[in-house]
């Protein structure tokens, strides 16, 4: 019982093969096995959003997914979207507007904000707040985060025209 299970997946475009215990969640697999510690573990029951990653292009809570459930999937973490430059402007906007203090929530915030901007290019502040409502920040009071996401949306919209 509870023997290791084989697992093959893509992480940030790189093929990974591993044997893991079923109980290992995806967040711990990324952090402990792959040393991708940008994905943070906060509440471990799906409430805080710090562990948000993308699976096959859609954001999920990596603490609410077993590593073995990611078999055959393409996982993207904050390291992936950061290194590729996909969210460089969003990161810059967070920096400029002090949209982070301790930084614990920031990877999850960035993953979730980028998801919003992909699906809805020019969201209003209400839509930004709603989309980020599953991501907790205990430092900023959220205003600066909403500012940064809104500013990025506007800059991207201008670039497109």
């Amino acid at each position, binding site marked *: *019982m*509870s*023997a290791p*299970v084989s697992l093959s997946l893509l992480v940030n475009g790189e093929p990974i093969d591993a044997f893991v*215990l*079923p*109980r290992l*969640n995806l967040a*711990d697999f990324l952090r402990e096995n792959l040393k991708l510690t940008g994905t943070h573990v906060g509440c*471990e*029951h*799906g409430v805080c*959003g710090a562990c*948000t990653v993308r*699976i096959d292009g*859609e*954001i*999920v*809570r990596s*603490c*609410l*997914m*077993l590593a*073995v*459930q990611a*078999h055959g999937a393409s996982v993207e973490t904050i390291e992936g979207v950061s290194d590729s430059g996909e969210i460089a402007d969003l990161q810059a906007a967070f920096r400029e507007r002090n949209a982070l203090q301790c930084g614990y929530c920031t990877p999850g915030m960035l993953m*979730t904000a980028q*998801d*919003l901007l992909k699906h809805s290019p020019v969201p209003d502040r209400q839509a930004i707040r*709603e*989309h980020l*409502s*599953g*991501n907790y920040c205990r430092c900023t009071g959220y205003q600066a985060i909403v500012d940064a996401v809104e500013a990025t949306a506007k800059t991207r919209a201008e670039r497109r025209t």
Partner: protein
Amino acid sequence: MKAAAFAYARATSVVNALELLAVHGDKAKVLSGGQSLMPAMNLRLLSPEILVDIGGLAELRGIAMRGDVLVVGALTRHVDLLRSPEIALHAPLLRDAVSHVAHPAIRNRGTIGGSLAHADPASELPACVMALDATIVARGPTGERRIAATEFFKGIYETALSPDELLVAIEAPVTGQGSTFFFQEYARRHGDYAVVGLAARAVVAAGRFSDLRLGFFAVGDRPLLAAAAGKLINASVNPELLAEAATALTNELDPQEDQQATAAMRRHLATVLLRRCVAALLARPELATGVAK
């Protein structure tokens, strides 16, 4: 916290999943989207010996019309309900409800079958399937059986499913013309557990309800199809009749007290939702204003 150790089996087909459930019985838990099961396991509220992962069974995911029945596969995710044109056309109640279910990252994984089988009394979809007069399709070792949604929910996290059965689909009759819907809930913040909620389906003709199904949730140990709706069907609704229906509703509710609300507060909020619902469905905003006693 982390989940306790368990064994894991990736089901290769529905038949395979049923075989696994037959072997392991109530020592097994079915893993669908995992958005309720995983938190419960991480918090050590649940420690199954084995998880049967049905997540890869593509045959269970999808939305289709079969005659005048809307069929929703058990593995259909919340995000699919939000985006589906069939749902928007035939059962917009599900779309409206799902927008209140947690947050985008959760809706990308959570499934309708998982939500119904989990049977959390505060969750939205159980009340919706009751309001829609839907049928739950379960498959077991001896074949398939159909369970009326109104007979499916038995208590907190309890359903009519036996441990060797798998919820495979939801069938909702499409009444075609004339059905209207209402969904609202009170929650501390959008996406939080509901304090009280209401999912309703109605048929309105000439300013009267010819049908009205009121599915309340977070008002007891299971969703409730309110009998008080009967007072409003085929009747000329006025503030007095609505007050009478509200009183009948508070009498049939048996809400629990928790850190979110007292039982009295839940009863009160349920009557507020009743008034708003009736006012919205009859397009008579003045009916929403009375304060329930």
